[in-house]
């Protein structure tokens, strides 16, 4: 399948974009866990990032049907929302809450660093492209 040049140019950004969206999603889930650290019967949730990213990138390959040959292939569409799973509690708590604040904070920090890393990858790819466009 021949891809339009403009498509080829942005295709390299799609993977990072999908990763960025998922990392934002995960930050939200972890923030919910941290917010509910004192809520009785709250079950901590998380999702498998590896699996979610695989699904998201597989989905974007066949995202939209083109009704006109001049249409660009729509790639990089946001895939389905990742399936949330309950976290296995490390220590039981009397009020039925399964949030372990240390685990959640560590996961949130890690996720933030990864989010920043993805941003840097994106930034450097954009810079590379700009350099090519400017021809310097």
């Amino acid at each position, binding site marked *: 399948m021949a891809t339009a040049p403009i498509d080829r140019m942005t295709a390299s950004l799609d993977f990072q974009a999908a990763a960025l969206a998922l990392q934002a999603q995960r930050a*939200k889930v972890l923030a919910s866990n941290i917010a509910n650290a004192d809520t009785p019967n709250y079950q901590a949730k998380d999702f498998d990032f590896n699996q979610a990213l695989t699904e998201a990138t597989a989905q974007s390959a066949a995202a939209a049907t083109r009704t006109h040959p001049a249409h660009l292939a729509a790639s990089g569409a946001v895939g389905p929302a990742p399936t949330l799973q309950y976290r296995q509690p490390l220590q039981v708590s009397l009020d039925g809450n399964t949030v372990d604040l240390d685990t959640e904070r560590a996961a949130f920090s890690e996720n933030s660093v990864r989010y920043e890393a993805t941003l840097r990858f994106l*930034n450097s790819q954009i810079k590379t492209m700009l350099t090519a466009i400017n021809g310097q």
Partner: protein
Amino acid sequence: MSLFKIFDVSGSAISAQSQRLNVVASNLANAESIAGPDGQPYKSRQVVFQTQNFGADASTAGVRVAQVIQDNTPPRRMHDPSNPLADSDGMVTMPNVNPVEEMVNMISASRSYETNVDVLNTAKTLLQKVLQLGA
């Protein structure tokens, strides 16, 4: 943009925790209040947290204070015959506030508050970095 939702989530947690801190302050302030407006000793109050969903998305869970309940544990009885409110046995009914429990509650609330502020700040920093993308 799901990072914006973090402001809702952590914001709700911050306000819920501050309400909890408020209740702790009331309890500690009234730990010795033998008679309230109704003539009865003060009863300790506790907040009940509940998960609050924003929209249909199950992955976004904030917190809200569902209700403030009155603690119905039996009051403390103290022997003080000189007190004008003492009964015929010289006993005074004191509030059922447990200062130790309240202090633990206070520390827990303040830690949770700090954690949520941290999360909020991190989300803000990340969003600012997104704004500078490609610059």
